[in-house]
């Protein structure tokens, strides 16, 4: 039972009930300081994400349906139509990296809604009263989104492989794929958390989330090459981090000509900017 002092008679043969051991609860843990703090918080947030996924994998499966349909219907049809010039590779192969980036982005955009839900349910409030800097909390959430997106990417890669897409199995390139998906998801989750810090309610964010995901997707090179687009759409695509993510994924997985250093630089810079913006706006959710 509890740590109630033994005010009751202990004449029985049983050992006296001294309550549970509480010795550790008397000693505060030693504080981590300096650079070791942020990685520890990121690890904590990622651990929670993995624990949740272990308890309930349905999301992983249901979220695989949409990319599978894109590849199966859109990919197969346009491969046959040969309507989109892809530089000699089957359209399905061209499309697969775009769909990986898309499904990762959809997961990440959901994180703003999740953080508002956590605010409403008090979970976020409690985390904000722990020795966790706002930026570390945001970075932790961003990488948790990345971990989830990487698992989702594995599912999409497997589906694509089943459909006969010829992808690299070079471990170094696959490591690059993981890094690109992590960075891209980190950026989009920060974008969505930053918007959450501005609009503050779930309903508004749902509307905005829906309003921006489709333009981000269609205004990128996920479905078609840049030079097919009208000028204004090319401009949109050039400032859209999703385009750089797709470009890197295509280069790494399919081996199409790409701009890996630029892609990584843009994604890293976008992620840093996103973390800064979301951390600055996070406090608004606590008020």
């Amino acid at each position, binding site marked *: 039972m509890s*740590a109630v002092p033994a005010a009751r008679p202990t004449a029985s043969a049983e050992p006296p009930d001294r309550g549970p051991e509480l010795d*550790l*609860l008397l000693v*505060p843990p030693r504080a981590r300081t300096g650079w070791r703090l942020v990685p520890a*918080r990121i690890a904590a947030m990622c651990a929670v994400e993995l624990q949740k996924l272990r308890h309930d994998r349905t999301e992983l499966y249901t979220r695989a349906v949409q990319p599978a349909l894109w590849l199966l219907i859109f990919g197969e049809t346009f491969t046959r139509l040969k309507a989109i010039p892809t530089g000699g590779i089957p359209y399905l192969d061209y499309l697969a990296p775009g769909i990986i980036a898309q499904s990762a982005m959809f997961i990440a955009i959901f994180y703003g809604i999740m953080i508002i839900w956590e605010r409403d349910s*008090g979970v976020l409030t409690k985390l904000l009263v*722990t020795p966790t800097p706002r930026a570390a909390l945001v970075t932790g959430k961003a990488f948790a989104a990345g971990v989830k997106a990487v698992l989702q990417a594995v599912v999409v890669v497997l589906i694509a492989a089943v459909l006969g897409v010829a992808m690299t199995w070079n471990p170094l390139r696959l490591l690059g794929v993981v890094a690109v998906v992590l960075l891209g998801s980190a950026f989009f989750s920060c974008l969505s958390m930053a918007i959450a810090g501005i609009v503050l309610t779930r309903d508004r964010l749902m509307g905005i989330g829906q309003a921006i995901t489709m333009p981000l997707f269609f205004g990128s090179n996920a479905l078609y090459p840049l030079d097919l687009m009208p000028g204004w759409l090319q401009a949109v695509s050039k400032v859209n981090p999703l385009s750089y993510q797709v470009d890197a994924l295509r280069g790494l997985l399919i081996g199409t000509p790409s701009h890996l250093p630029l892609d990584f630089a843009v994604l890293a810079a976008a992620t840093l900017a996103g973390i800064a913006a979301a951390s600055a706006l996070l406090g608004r959710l606590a008020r």
Partner: protein
Amino acid sequence: MDHEEAVVCRGLEYSFTHGRGKVTRAVDGIDLTVRTGEVFGLLGPNGAGKTTTIRAITTLLPVGAGMVRVFGHDATRRPMEVRRLLGYVPQQLSADAGLTGRENVALFARVFDVPRAERARRVTQALAAVDLTDAADRMAATYSGGMVRRLELAQALVSAPRLLVLDEPTIGLDPIARTGVWERVDAVRRATGMTVLVTTHYMDEADRHCDRIALMDRGRIRALGTPAELKDQVRQDGQQGQAGHEGRDGRDGRDEPTLDDVFRHFAGRDLADATEGDFGDVRRTRRTANRVG
């Protein structure tokens, strides 16, 4: 390094600005001191400003006017130091429903830097301290309201805080669950000697469990002292004033004033009346309780 005072607030004010420049003065100049080792109760009706005060002390709100210190650390300038010393249970029932009870507590062990080697044992002890050992590996979504509250206590206790801050720990719970929560708080306090700052609008709880209380109404502290002191004062004022008359305290000639009488005396209105005005918060709490519990 040893601070006599766990919490010091001086001239604390906080106003919420709604759209179109409407301003609510939620906390209107509060001075209070919580001494190390005591159970301090902040008592008042809905909307009195208890939660706002708590959120200023826990670094959730920027302290505009006034000063807040926790064990000597300024809440605005050194929030990280303050947070390390705090265990906080907010007014809403909040546990992550997608995790087990043990995982919920382990998260707080991690973010308070409990080393891996002792994490599991510490989490087990925190769960045992609130009597959740048997339910530890069930999903928090299956917990009752009282169990969620005790789980939150375990989350707050796992870092061995010097100050435990509980915002209406028993709101929305049935009498048995209320007793259960208080038993854990009392037992942990006896075992660890930690300071407890608690808000409530139940007079009987404040009377039974708090060493000192502050009566709060409309953003101000109307009276502060031990329950006995406050009652004494009401008795004396009553005798000096209209002797033999029921007076504005309306105590029907009873000898021992209750804390309800005390509130009426100092705030000039009934606690029940003051509380009935605003059901919004209670309803919000209930809704959360249903969703999580």
